[in-house]
């Protein structure tokens, strides 16, 4: 056996975990090799140093500390559960969920009941000034022209767009970018302007608006070309303006494509009614409309004349006509609608005789 081999077996030899043959070989080698003897002695001493290391007494408090830690660290599990179910501790998540829930519900309710809320009559005086600051670009004009083409506006005595002077006063709100349709209508504004004076032609033009895009009226209100802006805005148009704004909100949120489709689909009828008492006539007309399954969208009062915007099924139009004749003198200003089927936007202007 060589010294190297012995060194490898040294550990095992000391521990006595080698075979008896190996042990005999090692012992034979040790008799002749002093180096290995020394190695053996050193290793034995090293191991005895390790073995002789005193066992150290742990601190007296160790046991209590361990037990107290066990009690505090294992019991809080129950405590934690209790905390979890204790109302105050989960307040925040509940609040968060509640807030989201309320918001969603509110939005849903708002969207559901919105059409009924349209008859708002508060005048808005701030918006026109804000909108005035924004300018229309020619590109936008061109774009809106293109979009408008497919929409048939049969009842509207819409002035040709090219005839419109590109007035810097044609202002836009940010919403219009969403809804190009409304832009096209804006060009009709100048022709609507005499509205405030109660001109019949202007009225008619205006009355057609809801069928196409209610937002247009909004423009009219905002247009500074209205002869006496402050007066008109306050007295006459604001009611229209706010009404339209409500509609604008809903329709602007939908895609412009949808708006075009609805514009295509809808037909409008404008009629004026000459009566003795505007107020009673309006009530009567409302009754008639309701009886004929019509839906009143809104009413406005403009210089002693009442304007009623409603929606009615085309099948009931003739019935409506017959009924209206009993109330007063009816003037119908509408193209033939017999081939048309479905809902019709109806604008009834009640004039004092």
């Amino acid at each position, binding site marked *: 056996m060589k010294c190297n081999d012995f060194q*490898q077996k*040294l*550990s*095992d030899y000391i521990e006595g*975990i080698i075979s008896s043959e190996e042990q005999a070989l090692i012992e034979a080698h040790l008799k002749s090799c002093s180096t290995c003897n020394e190695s053996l*002695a*050193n*290793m034995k*001493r*090293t*191991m005895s*140093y*390790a*073995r*002789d*290391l*005193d*066992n*150290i*007494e*742990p*601190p007296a408090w*160790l*046991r209590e*500390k*361990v*037990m107290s*830690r*066990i*009690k505090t*660290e*294992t019991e809080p599990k129950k405590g934690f559960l209790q905390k979890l179910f204790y109302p105050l501790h989960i307040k925040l998540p509940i609040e968060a969920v509640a807030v989201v829930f309320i918001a969603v519900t509110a939005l849903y309710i708002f969207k559901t009941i919105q059409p009924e809320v349209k008859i708002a009559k508060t005048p808005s005086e701030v918006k026109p000034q804000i909108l005035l600051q924004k300018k229309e670009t020619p590109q936008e004009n061109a774009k809106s022209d293109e979009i408008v083409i497919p929409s048939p506006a049969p009842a509207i005595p819409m002035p040709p767009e090219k005839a419109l002077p590109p007035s810097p006063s044609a202002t836009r709100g940010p919403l219009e970018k969403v809804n190009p349709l409304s832009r096209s209508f804006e060009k009709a504004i100048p022709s609507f302007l005499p509205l405030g004076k109660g001109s019949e032609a202007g009225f008619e033009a205006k009355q057609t608006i809801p069928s196409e895009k209610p937002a247009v009226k909004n423009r009219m209100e905002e247009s500074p070309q209205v002869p006496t802006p402050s007066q008109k805005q306050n007295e006459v148009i604001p009611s229209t303006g706010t009404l339209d704004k409500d509609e604008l909100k809903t329709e602007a949120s939908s895609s412009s494509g949808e708006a075009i489709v609805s514009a295509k689909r809808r037909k409008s009828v404008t009629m004026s009614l000459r009566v003795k008492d505007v107020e009673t006539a309006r009530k009567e007309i409302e009754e008639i409309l309701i009886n004929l399954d019509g839906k009143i969208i809104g009413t406005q009062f403009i210089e002693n004349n009442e304007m009623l915007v409603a929606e009615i099924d085309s099948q009931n139009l003739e019935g409506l006509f017959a009924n209206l004749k009993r109330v007063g003198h009816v003037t119908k200003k509408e193209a033939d609608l017999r081939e048309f089927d479905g809902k019709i936007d109806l604008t009834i202007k009640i004039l004092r005789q």
Partner: protein
Amino acid sequence: MKREERLATDEDAEAVSLCKEGNVDAFESLVGKYQKKMFNIAYRMIGNYADACEIVQDTFVSAYKGVKNFEGKARFSTWLYTIVVNLSRNRLNQLKIQRSREAFSIDDPVGADDAEVKRETASDEPSILERLEKKDVQQKVQGCIDTLDNEFKEVLVLRDIQGFSYDEITDMLKIPEGTVKSRLFRAREALKDCLKKVMGKL
């Protein structure tokens, strides 16, 4: 010793089953029984009294939490020692990182905490000088153990200091017996070299 035999001879089986039912007193008796051995394993591995105390506490706490999952594949004591070895190893790794961050000098005096060490074998009343000398030697030995790599330190502590069998060490460290032997050989060689350096002779 085979596993089945060990299982049958696990003296703590009864206390352990009580612990599984949540009996804290039964666990406390086990703490009393094993704390010293646990503490010494931790102390020899880490070489620091305060750290060893903490490791032992952590070991018992995690043992109490995990006793429900203790399947009895090994003896309860072996299971406990496994935990203490693992936690000590983790602590050593932490300290290593800490030291490298703080540029802590490994030449700092070791075993400074030994001030609290009490002599157990006071039967033959050795002189103060002898006691001081022995204490000095023990500090040097501990200092040398501290210089070993973790894997060598573990086997040396478990085999040469605590006197566990190869079987038990195999169970605790989850390494084959051959690996235990070879690590032990290298650990002893390293300790020998270190002691030679520190003490001048063996």
